[in-house]
């Protein structure tokens, strides 16, 4: 009998496909008159007004229950919405983390008061979240985090530092993985997740400029930051378990295959405009098309596991690793192709798009878990170790 048979062809239900035209219209508005090099930023593109517009139109908090301001839809509906937003490169950074993983985390592990406070605001696109995982000494070895939250009479006091926190300069809250007991040697034990109000006294955020000139991630310092008792989300000491479940949401979506798709489309339009149809070009276009089609089907297969109520950690890792390899090969191959035809002028926008994606492509297999970590998870899923 087949191995790894949890991933099998699935299709998007008609009811979820039905929302495509509406989200497409809104995404097209946001993308209109925006150059491909800007649209290629997509989930690094910050536009809070657009996020609120999505909230008003009912496209945030899709998977949340209606009594928390959500729309009671499943992961398939979210797949359709995300696909439409990323396919055209709409600026989704503001609400991205809150909608994708903070809201499900609060729904799954938060108490009633936390759900009632945060979830409706997330669904309206009013509050934005970032994830506090990496620290200067903790990257892939996430269990070694040292930033601490100590119990006080009124709640918690946080000291330490996070880094590479995407969106921190624009966000209202961070859900941070912190050490609440023991030391780094205790590894997975003694870690908890806390919601930190980034406007609280003692929080300092320093943006970090990236190689493309953007400032989407930041250093975040905590100096005697006092938090109320209800900042703790889930159970004290369960932080590792909760983060693992959260990462399945983070890793399983179509964002792991579409990071370079704006470039792919710009290149295809270039080929169509210059009328190039030699066998090598056709083979390259065909290869990308076949891989995109299969990756999309794999991503839907993974979404089907989420829809079945599972936490497809291994499956999500598998799709993400294959997807990011594709995303990274696109700019390399497209760059070679364009520069192999110096007689066919490349317009400035396509050139900027190509170099932007080329420069940021290394991040595709870093964010949300490095290639090497993901492959370790897959190997464990195969029974190795």
């Amino acid at each position: 009998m087949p191995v790894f048979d949890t991933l099998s062809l699935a299709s998007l239900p008609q009811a979820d496909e039905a929302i495509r035209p509406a989200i497409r219209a809104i995404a097209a508005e946001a993308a209109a008159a925006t150059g491909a090099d800007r649209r290629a930023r997509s989930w690094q593109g910050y536009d809070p007004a657009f996020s609120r517009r999505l909230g008003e139109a009912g496209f945030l908090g899709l998977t949340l229950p209606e009594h928390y301001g959500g729309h009671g839809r499943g992961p398939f509906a979210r797949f359709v919405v995300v696909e439409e937003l990323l396919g055209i490169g709409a600026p989704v950074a503001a609400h991205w983390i809150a909608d994708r993983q903070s809201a499900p985390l609060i729904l799954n592990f938060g108490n009633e008061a936390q759900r009632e406070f945060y979830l409706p605001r997330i669904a309206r696109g009013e509050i934005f979240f970032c994830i506090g995982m990496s620290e200067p000494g903790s990257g892939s070895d996430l269990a070694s985090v040292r930033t601490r939250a100590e119990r006080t009479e009124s709640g918690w006091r946080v000291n330490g530092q996070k880094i590479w926190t995407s969106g921190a300069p624009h966000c209202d809250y961070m859900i941070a993985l912190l050490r609440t007991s023991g030391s780094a040697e205790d590894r997975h034990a003694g870690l908890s997740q806390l919601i930190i109000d980034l406007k609280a006294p003692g929080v300092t955020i320093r943006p970090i400029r990236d190689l493309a000139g953007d400032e989407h991630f930041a250093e975040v310092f905590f100096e005697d930051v006092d938090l109320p008792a209800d900042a703790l989300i889930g159970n004290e000491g369960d932080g590792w378990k909760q983060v693992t479940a959260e990462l399945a949401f983070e890793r399983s979506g179509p964002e792991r295959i579409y990071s370079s798709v704006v470039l792919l489309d710009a290149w295809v339009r270039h080929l169509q405009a210059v009328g190039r149809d030699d066998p090598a070009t056709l083979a390259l276009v065909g290869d990308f098309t076949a891989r995109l089609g299969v990756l999309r089907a794999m991503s839907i297969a993974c979404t089907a596991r989420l829809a079945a109520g599972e936490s497809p950690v291994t499956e999500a890792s598998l799709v993400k690793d294959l997807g990011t390899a594709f995303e990274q090969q696109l700019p390399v191959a497209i760059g070679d192709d364009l520069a192999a035809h110096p007689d066919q002028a490349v317009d400035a926008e396509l050139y900027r798009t190509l170099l932007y994606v080329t420069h940021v492509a290394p991040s595709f297999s870093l964010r949300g878990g490095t290639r090497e970590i993901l492959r370790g998870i897959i190997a464990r899923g195969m029974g190795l170790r």
Partner: protein
Amino acid sequence: MSEFLEPFERMIESLSPPATVRAIEAGGEAGALWNGIAESGFLDALVPEERGGAGLPLAEVCALWQALGRHAVPLPVGETMIARALLADAPDGPIALASAGPGAATVVPFGRVARHVLLEFGGRLCLVEASGEETGVAGSLAARMIWNAAPAEVVGAAPDGGLRAIAAVLRAALIAGAADRLTAMTAAYANERVQFGKPIGKQQALQQQMAVMAEDMVACRIAAQLGCAGALQPGLVAAATAKSIASTAAARLAATAHAVHGAIGISEEYDLQLYTRRLHEWRLADGSETYWNRLLGAARLGDARGSVDYVREAL
């Protein structure tokens, strides 16, 4: 998952163990194996119910084809299922599939063990008796066949999209099945084989390669399922996607399986070669990845839609 998979797989597992596969590859008698499969009724899986078949959708038969690959079944069982569905009056015995032009030698998978070949030649389907030369490749069941002129035994027009497209989708499913077996064998071996005082499966360098193997294996399966999602005559985009992905992955999968197994994997007595030889043969049969990529690329460049819309709607 198909309810027919388990009984089908149980049958071929008992009828076609590795010893039988080797014996038939060595030129031994295949009649008993064929009769066993024929008696099961599965050869008419795709034949419409009104013609006495099971009328299963292609999507369901996809799982059976993968099982054939998983057990290296040494007869054209999938090909015969296709031929029996396409022909109103199919002859008994194994039928291979081929698409050829005048005078061009074609390597026909299972040509050595087929009684007939369903051939697409000049836009027509012909049913000819199987005759050709051995390829001279060790263990191969394929045969080299040449038709210099259109055969007289025309049985109808070529199916929409061509016989090669259906054959390519079958080939992708067989590759997916063999990939499945290869991945399981390689993971098991990595957990058993001890070097430097521990199973080699504990080495990170090896785990990283094995993870890629699992990715390729799952991609092959999904690609085959995409190819089989529609009717028996798959569209160009579906057939091209299935075979492009499966053929590209086939060579990588075989390479990693051999790298992990070391020298034992090269030996005749070890089962690995039954699967890796097939992966390479099926990669080339019915068009390699570049053959299908060119066709798919031409279709894509002739279409004004965005890439995501294209794969969503055309696939």
